[in-house]
């Protein structure tokens, strides 16, 4: 490790004494004006040239330096009367409370001093001073800067005098170091004026000068200070002096912090609150978070993103205009001299270079004119900043960067037009879509950075998520529908079609024999992508979860079985290749490596897109058309539900009068009678909606595109469909039926205390049939709650995330597996207390025992099946004998 050149041993926080303020001051400021009529700064004004230079060409009157050398110099304002510093208001209150109002001695007893020495906490003050016997009065801090002693207001002058009386010996007991922080310094007599560099004035296009907020505030301070002084010297009435004094206190306070509680913020003429000292530092836009913790960087670019299914998931399309600005430094060496020369000769036109850096550090800009000349002059040892080219490693990022997959390394691919292009399959990890999203791109500048990014950050390294040990990158939407159409049952393809598909996936090798009369099945084509030794079986997304699974004899083609890289039965859908859930994807990435995984995703998505193009796919509102008789049935269901609801309400009303009476609603244990009714009603209404959905679903079969999408896991759900075709169901606000609105009713359309379904937000219409006005209103209420929830959730979870990251950012797993912080303190004795890398886990488990068993047993099972000869799907019937259940446990033991 590289040694630390300078180690910070300690930091001291001191108070600035009036003496120091005057000593560091270059000039006293007395005039509130800045520039005279000729535009020259006024001496002893706020823009005094002794305070530093901001205009190029001029020299500083104090240090003689030019703009770049002069750091700026402080000035000072002598305050006519002392002013309390807001930042120390609390500390002053504590000091006044702890010391005698007359002699300044400590108010706590000798015994307590010892405790005080150790704790340095507040003191419970005595009523009588133990030193001089003076009776003490209670002092209250009236925020922000007024102190009252039993109703009597203390002037800052009095406060300062009292603080002066506290002796040096006593200060350590109060937590102060007398050498560096005398308490009376907390009441200001001198105000430092920051250098002009800190508050530069801007010259507008019209030639008008616009001053910085701080300058404005200082003008206020000076003006009032002057008036106060004049009035005081002229012997003005006490009242007027006090008013001015208070006004000066206000201006100084807002100069420090314009968001002090209890006083109105000082405003600009336009009504905008001034940004004073505290506002410059505080918060997200403050100096710390925005300029010190975070900085703007070079070699980065940002633009709108758009999709490109033809590039690999680890590529990113970079607009050629960006590529000409983003450069990569290349050291010229004997082996690349010729290539670099060619690039330099191109000059600023692509693929060229922008700068040559000579070994002496001189940067030379390459222009169209001098390009040829410099190309000839190029020598080994030079560095050339060449344009971004295909294959360069870049970092790609989308905010909010919530997890490590929000910033991944891609290979650049220079393209025309002006957007970044990315493969659709990497949208989920970035949480990107193309409704105007913008993303950032950073070009790496050193060999080490490129190596690190390539090894750790490339997209394929992040296919498996550390969140749950499954893939976050995979097929989505159309890819899944496409794969479904390709492989469902015996989808047939002609030679032409097969060749189109096969060429899209760069297949080289012999085509399998056509399954039936010169036609290939989709399953055969899909199998071309699978590794030759892949064996898997699992239930597809379309599986209906029958009580007894018929395994590969499934009539819905929902049992996926892959034998030696051949898809034998089952359809490929969300469960197989989808992002977040793709089983085949998981296995390929895990068993065949990340690059194989990347290639698989690239090809499977391309294949699916070709398949869906060949087969054709469309969906529309008429997908949810159901026959008249089904509509009647649904109406029937709704009527029945309504009747049930009314029966329940009647029973409830009986129970209210006399719970023991026959037919009364029986109260559920732990619930009030009202709650019982609500639960029962929810049950009835929920069932009604489900039943309506079922009726609708019965008429929507697997030939329905909307159903295909829902069932295969491409987009939407059966619930969405039944809400479109059947009934929308109960709307809720805060998890309950809608009950708010008017007195004892939700809307004036209903009777008071109407508990029936319609009056409490049950929507029996479907999206397709349309909603009644009251239903529409209730639906909007539910929808509004959803929107508010997401808005609240994002801001809250964002803050939580920030706090968590601040707490965890410097924890590190050491070579011995322990987790430690920068101080070397052990946080965990082994990572995660189990040393499991969740990325490498199988959906959270360290080892997938079932998988191991299956792998070992497969050979045996296979030999048994082989004898029975499995019919390849694509041939009509599939009534196969059940696969012998591998009796797991015992056989493992033997293995």
């Amino acid at each position, binding site marked *: 490790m590289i040694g630390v050149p300078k180690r910070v041993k300690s930091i001291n926080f001191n108070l600035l004494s009036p003496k120091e303020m005057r000593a560091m001051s270059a000039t006293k400021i007395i005039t509130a004006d800045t520039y005279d009529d000729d535009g020259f700064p006024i001496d002893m004004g706020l823009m005094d040239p002794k305070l530093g230079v901001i205009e190029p060409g001029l020299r500083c009157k104090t240090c003689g330096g030019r703009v770049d050398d002069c750091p700026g110099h402080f000035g000072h304002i002598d305050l006519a009367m002392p002013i309390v510093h807001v930042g120390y208001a609390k500390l002053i209150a504590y000091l006044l409370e702890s010391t005698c109002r007359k002699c300044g001695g400590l108010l706590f007893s000798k015994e307590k001093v010892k405790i005080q020495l150790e704790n340095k906490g507040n003191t419970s003050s005595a009523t009588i001073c133990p030193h001089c016997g003076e009776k003490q009065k209670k002092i209250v801090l009236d925020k922000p800067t007024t102190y009252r002693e039993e109703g009597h207001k203390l002037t800052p002058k009095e406060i300062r005098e009292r603080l002066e009386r506290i002796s040096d010996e006593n200060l350590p007991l109060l937590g102060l170091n007398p050498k560096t922080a005398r308490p009376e310094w907390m009441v200001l007599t001198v105000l430092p004026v920051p250098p002009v560099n800190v508050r530069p004035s801007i010259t507008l296009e019209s030639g008008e000068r616009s001053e910085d907020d701080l300058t404005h505030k200082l003008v206020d301070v000076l003006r009032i200070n002057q008036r106060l002084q004049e009035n005081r010297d002229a012997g003005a009435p006490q009242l007027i002096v006090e008013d001015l004094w208070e006004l000066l206190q206000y201006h100084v306070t807002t100069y420090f912090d314009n968001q002090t509680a209890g006083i109105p913020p000082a405003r600009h003429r336009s009504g905008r609150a001034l940004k004073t000292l505290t506002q410059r530092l505080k918060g997200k836009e403050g100096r710390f978070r925005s300029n010190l913790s975070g900085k703007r960087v070079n070699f980065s670019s940002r633009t709108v993103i758009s999709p490109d299914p033809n590039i690999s998931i680890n590529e990113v399309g970079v607009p050629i205009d960006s590529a000409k600005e983003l450069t990569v430094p290349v050291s010229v060496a004997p082996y690349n001299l010729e290539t670099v020369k060619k690039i330099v000769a191109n000059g600023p036109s692509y693929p060229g270079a922008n700068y040559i850096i000579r070994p002496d550090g001189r940067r030379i800009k390459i222009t169209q004119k001098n390009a040829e000349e410099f190309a000839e002059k190029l020598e080994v040892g030079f560095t050339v900043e060449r344009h971004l080219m295909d294959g360069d490693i870049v970092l790609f990022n989308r905010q909010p960067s919530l997890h490590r997959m929000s910033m991944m390394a891609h290979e650049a691919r220079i393209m025309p037009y002006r957007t970044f292009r990315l493969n659709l399959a990497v949208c989920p990890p970035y949480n990107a879509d193309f409704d105007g999203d913008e993303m950032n791109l950073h070009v790496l500048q050193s060999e080490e950075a490129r190596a690190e990014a390539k090894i750790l950050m490339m997209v394929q390294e992040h296919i498996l998520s550390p969140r749950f040990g499954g893939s976050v990158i995979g097929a989505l939407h159309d890819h899944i529908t496409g794969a479904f159409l390709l492989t469902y049952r015996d989808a047939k393809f002609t030679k032409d079609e097969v060749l189109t598909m096969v060429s899209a996936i760069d297949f080289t090798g012999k085509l399998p024999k056509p399954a039936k009369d010169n036609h290939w099945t989709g399953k055969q084509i899909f199998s071309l992508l699978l590794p030759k030794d892949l064996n898997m079986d699992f239930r597809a997304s379309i599986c209906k979860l029958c009580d007894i699974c018929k395994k590969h004899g499934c009539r819905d083609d929902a049992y996926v079985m892959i034998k030696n890289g051949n898809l034998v039965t089952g359809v490929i859908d969300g469960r197989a290749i989808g992002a977040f859930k793709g089983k085949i994807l998981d296995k390929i990435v895990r068993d065949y490596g990340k690059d194989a995984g990347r290639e698989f995703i690239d090809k499977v998505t391309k294949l699916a897109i070709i398949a869906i193009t060949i087969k054709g796919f469309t969906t529309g509102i008429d997908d949810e058309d159901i026959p008249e008789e089904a509509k009647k049935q649904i109406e029937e269901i709704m009527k029945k539900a309504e009747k049930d609801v009314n029966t329940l309400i009647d029973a409830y009303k009986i129970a209210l009068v006399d719970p023991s009476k026959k037919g009364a609603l029986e109260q559920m244990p732990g619930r009030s009678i009202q709650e019982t009714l609500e639960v029962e009603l929810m049950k009835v209404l929920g069932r009604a909606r489900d039943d309506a959905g079922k009726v609708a679903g019965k008429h929507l079969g697997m030939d329905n595109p909307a159903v295909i999408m829902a069932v295969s896991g491409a987009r939407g759900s059966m619930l969405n469909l039944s809400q479109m075709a059947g009934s929308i169901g109960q709307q809720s606000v805060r998890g309950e039926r809608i009950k708010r609105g008017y007195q004892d009713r939700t809307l004036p359309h209903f009777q008071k205390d109407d508990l029936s379904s319609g009056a409490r937000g049950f929507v029996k219409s479907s999206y397709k049939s349309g909603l009644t006005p009251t239903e529409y209103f209730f639906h909007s209420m539910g929808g509004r709650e959803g929107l508010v929830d997401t808005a609240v959730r994002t801001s809250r979870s964002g803050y939580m995330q920030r706090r968590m990251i601040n707490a965890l950012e410097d924890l590190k797993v050491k070579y011995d597996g322990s987790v430690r912080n920068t101080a070397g303190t052990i946080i965990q*004795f082994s990572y995660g*207390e189990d040393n499991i890398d969740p990325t490498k886990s199988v959906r959270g488990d360290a080892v997938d025992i079932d998988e191991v068993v299956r792998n070992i047993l497969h050979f045996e099972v296979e030999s048994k099946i082989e004898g029975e000869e499995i019919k390849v799907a694509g041939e009509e019937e599939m009534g196969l004998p059940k696969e012998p259940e591998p009796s797991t446990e015992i056989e493992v033991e033997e293995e």
Partner: protein
Amino acid sequence: MLLSGCADNPGKPGGQGFKSPQARGSEGFQGERMKIDVTKHKLVPEHVLLSDTESKDVLKKYNVSRDSLPQIPVTDPCARMLGAKPGQIIKIIRRSQTAGSFTAYRMVVEA
């Protein structure tokens, strides 16, 4: 809180229904006597007080000073049961679904 003594007298936790630790026969008992034996609770992992030599071994194993270990206050019920003193090290053996068992060490500190 679920307590081993609860079954005897569910109505009054901490009442007469509780037997003293001795009566229940806690072996090797050397720490403070408490009304409730928290170590018997199923959610409380096993705590073991380490000897000086064992402590040294642990510190050597992780190459740390005592201060770099996580801490446990002397007032912690388990530490009190063990009669631990500040500076000593307590070994905590937790059951883990993923790792079987997991051992952590904590240095006893003044509360």
